[in-house]
């Protein structure tokens, strides 16, 4: 097990008129190697939740454990924790600051105490993993396109070689092609490097086919937590909290209602196609 939250509550501006509970009694366990999707509406507490994972926010009530250790106990090194639990914020390209791409990606490893050579080695590896072409390594990050900037920013966290990678809406503001490329790259990292990945999104469609587990947040509380199929079967409740299941789920549910025994747990178009063909009693090659 790698990350565990126990009865975590977080209150913004306690004792003032602005007091709001961003998280309410959330308990959660994320085993290492899992690909978790966190979904919720704006203001559902998902961004607050992930900032608890690497100690950027301290729970008002409750405890956060990493590898069984309470991260807020006396003497626990938050700096070390943050190099093991990498967090990529929303619009990470807004944090780029160096004169060229490579030095920006080196920032993280250098803070970890790596030598110049080692930092550069790691930076190059991270940039390769995010699929940025080598000809851009020496150009200014501000000359790149939106998608390229985002790759640089994600590489900046990857270069720290974290065991857990958290990404807050990594595809926000990207076109469909850029979105798929980034998500595929993340999925590849998950299998290749065997790291735990926590992906925050507000779109079921985007993450449904990648994740092992989905956590749905609503008004600071856990609404659903489980395998994607299991969560999507609650599509009516999901709609009530302003979210939607993937379109495939709706089609399959409608087919089932119409008397065709389609498999409602299908998520991708491919799965759906196979299950519909099967239900209609045909094989793929008909």
């Amino acid at each position, binding site marked *: 097990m790698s990350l565990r939250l126990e009865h975590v509550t977080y209150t913004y501006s306690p004792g003032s008129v602005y007091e709001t509970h961003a998280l309410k009694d959330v308990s959660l366990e994320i085993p290492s190697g899992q690909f978790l999707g966190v979904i919720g509406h704006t203001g559902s507490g998902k961004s607050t939740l992930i900032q608890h994972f690497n100690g*950027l926010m301290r729970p008002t009530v409750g405890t956060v454990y990493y590898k069984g250790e309470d991260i807020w106990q006396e003497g626990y090194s938050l700096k070390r924790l943050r190099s093991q639990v990498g967090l990529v*914020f929303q619009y990470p390209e*807004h944090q780029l600051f160096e004169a060229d791409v490579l030095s920006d990606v080196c920032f993280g490893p250098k803070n970890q105490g790596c030598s110049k050579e080692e930092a550069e080695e790691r930076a190059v590896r991270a940039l390769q993993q995010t699929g940025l072409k080598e000809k851009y390594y020496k150009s200014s990050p501000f000359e790149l396109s939106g998608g390229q900037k985002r790759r640089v920013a994600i590489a900046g966290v990857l270069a720290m070689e974290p065991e857990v990678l958290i990404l807050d809406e990594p595809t926000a503001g990207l076109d469909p092609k850029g979105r798929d490329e980034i998500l595929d790259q993340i999925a590849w990292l998950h299998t290749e490097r065997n790291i735990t990945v926590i992906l925050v999104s507000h779109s079921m469609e985007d993450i449904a086919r990648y994740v092992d587990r989905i956590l749905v947040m609503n008004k600071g509380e856990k609404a659903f937590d489980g395998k994607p199929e299991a969560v999507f079967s609650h599509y009516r409740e999901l709609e009530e909290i302003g979210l939607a299941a993937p379109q495939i789920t709706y089609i399959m549910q409608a087919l089932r209602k119409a008397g065709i025994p389609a498999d409602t747990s299908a998520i991708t178009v491919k799965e759906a196609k196979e299950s519909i063909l099967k239900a209609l009693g045909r094989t793929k090659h008909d």
Partner: protein
Amino acid sequence: MIRDITIGQFYPADSILHRLDPRVKFIGTFLFLISLFVADSFWGYALATVFLAAAIGLSKVPVKFMLKGLKPLFIILLITVLFNLFLMPGEVLWSAGFLKITREGVVQAVKIGIRLIYLVIGSSIMTLTTTPNQLTDGMEKILAPLNKIKVPVHEISMMMSIALRFIPILMEETDKIMKAQIARGADFESGNIIQRAKSMVPLLVPLFISAFRRADDLAMAMEARCYHGGDNRTQMKPLVYHRRDYAAYVISVLYLGADIALRVFL
């Protein structure tokens, strides 16, 4: 941390002070500030204290919230008080080496201390009970006569309201970038002054870039809606005086009058 600055922050509540016309609050605050420099006797300060306490009471803003605004000014306050305490010539009460405390120094330090604190609280009351938009609207109206001598009053007040509007946004942005860099292992707290200044680069560069980007976007959005300055521009909610506003004027003027009378006759 940076959120502690309460100057320029609006505190939503439903009180008589919140409903007053911003022009009244502006002029009232100005009169109060003058009164602080007129007051020189114990009774003068007592009157100011009563006036301030009444205003705090009427505003329905928690006192704790107001005192928080003093925190960032603590150092300035301390330096001013210490300078007055030690550098005032006069009847020596205590001395050690080149430092000496005089009776006049103590009196002056206390006076300056009270003045500064009241000054900050007084202006905080205004900003806490008035939205930035109201504030600049009021300012524009008060300064409108200057238009005649070609002072671009509308443009100035528009710049002010934009600047005020951007303070919370930039503060949030700073917070976000800071967290993002901390997540990448940045350290903003330890090290000597040079290291610390250097460690601000990863914060300041993105912050400036984002400020420019936002300014650019805003200018574009304003132009897209045909903004062209203040000529012939009307307001959706023009400021109108009510009875309570006149009453507030009368009270403020009476207060300043009483303060001056105390100074002259006591």
